[in-house]
């Protein structure tokens, strides 16, 4: 109930953010432009529409999560609204979860809206609803949930600008860390390899949520991969949220 109340107010606040609509506009523009781009390109047009469409949803979704998520907790502290909230019988963990779920709800609505536009564009080209695309969008959303958790974590102790940079760094590292897996394979067994393996286990691997290529090209994906990617996303998000709660619980609100 309390978490739902905080989530509701966060959703209401996020809805008022003009940045959200600006990003949504550009995302829609990107999806629609994919169709124009497809006309100008040599090759399978529908693949280009799907590729650019999914990339737009992913990119603008991440920007929404970072730009809104990093200010979530900071704004409450800066505007001192937190004094009134934490003076109620509210656990700090409930506050963090409420803020997180409020933004996840906002992103869910935005992703749904972007997906509808995307499916409509694809439908206009193929005259059929391509359900596999929903799998790719579903995992993009899972990635957004994780990015939101990271943004909330940084927002607990840092300014929005720094939090945005940290979260962006997390996103970039997350999409490049799979390279470590290649290095591990090529390294000889030993301390160095163990170190790199430890680093790889600690760093996020956001490529776990990237099914765009497989979906666009119609490649088969084993069901186990879905499950492991889903579990990876849920566990990593829970870990980051746990860290955020730990940091937030120790804070003094001067």
């Amino acid at each position, binding site marked *: 109930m309390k978490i739902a109340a905080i989530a509701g107010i966060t959703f209401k606040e996020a809805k008022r953010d003009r940045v959200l609509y600006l990003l949504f506009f550009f995302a829609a523009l990107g999806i629609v432009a994919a169709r124009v781009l497809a006309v100008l390109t040599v090759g399978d047009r529908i693949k280009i529409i799907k590729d650019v469409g999914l990339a737009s949803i992913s990119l603008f979704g991440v920007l929404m999560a970072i730009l809104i998520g990093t200010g979530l907790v900071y704004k409450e502290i800066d505007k*001192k609204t937190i004094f009134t909230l934490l003076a109620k019988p509210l656990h700090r963990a409930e506050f963090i979860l409420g803020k997180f779920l409020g933004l996840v709800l906002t992103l869910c609505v935005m992703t749904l809206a972007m997906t509808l536009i995307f499916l409509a564009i694809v439908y206009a080209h193929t005259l059929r609803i391509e359900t596999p695309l929903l799998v790719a969008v579903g995992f993009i959303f899972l990635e957004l949930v994780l990015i939101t958790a990271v943004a909330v974590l940084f927002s607990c102790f840092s300014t929005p600008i720094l939090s945005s940079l940290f979260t962006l760094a997390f996103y970039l590292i997350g999409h490049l860390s799979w390279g470590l897996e290649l290095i591990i394979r090529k390294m000889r067994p030993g301390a160095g390899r163990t170190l790199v393996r430890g680093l790889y286990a600690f760093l996020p691997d956001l490529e776990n949520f990237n099914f765009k290529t497989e979906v666009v090209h119609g490649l088969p994906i084993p069901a186990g991969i879905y499950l492991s990617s889903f579990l990876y996303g849920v566990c990593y998000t829970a870990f980051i949220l746990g860290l955020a709660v730990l940091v937030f619980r120790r804070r*003094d609100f001067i």
Partner: protein
Amino acid sequence: MSDAIRIRDLRKNFRLGFIPKTRPVLKGITFSVREGEIFGYLGPNGAGKTTTIKCLLGLIRPDAGTVDIFGRSSLSPRSRETLGFLPENPYFYDYLTAREFLAFTADLFGLARRDKAERIARLLKLVGLERAADLPLRKYSRGMLQRAGLAQALINDPKLVILDEPLGGMDPLGRKEIRDIIVRFKDEGKTVFFTSHILQDIEMICDRVAIIVGGRIVREGALRDLVSEKVLFTEVTVSGIAAEVFGDLGESLSVQGDRVLLRVFGEAKVDEVLDLVRDRRGRLVSLSPRTETLEDIFVETVTRT
């Protein structure tokens, strides 16, 4: 009577700056607030009043000492179930209306839907915001925000109400209304802990006070014990007689037209002044004995400390 608030040896240091420097803010505070009383917490700016309140609300972790509310540690969210708080400058979500904001705070206490609407309507009436209930809070004046803040502090029908400068920014009529509401809390058996810079208000409604200076409680007790009823001097206003006539009977404070305001020390001299007025066929306009006030005690305590 049990304690609503019990603070023992509360200490808090702040570490501020790029190279953190420790600054002690609370240096071992100990006092209790009994259930059902109105307790005034006074102190100059920066004395540690708001820090004490933040410790009471669990917004700040004490470095040492204990803070209990109705026997529960202030760090436990359960201690805030029976507590209502009005911050010094009410900071709320300004895009919400007062009604929406109260509904939100009611949700934080898990109030049932049927109780919620009834309680919100009652509180809006109590603080005089019925007509503005559906206006966004950003359109409210400071005084209106203070009223909305008071309403949210009462949403859970608290046993203890903590008010940080509740009368700041209010016009005289509003101040009287809020004072009356605070006195009504006492009649309903609620405990009130409040800070104010307006010492007359504290003197009018508080049962007990504590004065904090430099992070230490320097005086604490029942108002009637702190403020003596001894007459310090008497202010006498007379007309029709020149100020010089009174000589050293009293100190002339002001002369307006044919009116003279005198400060007279001692009852004997007051009698002499009155005799003189009769003899010289002057007119006595007013005579007011001045007893010690909380302000006198406060100024004396702060200056001495």
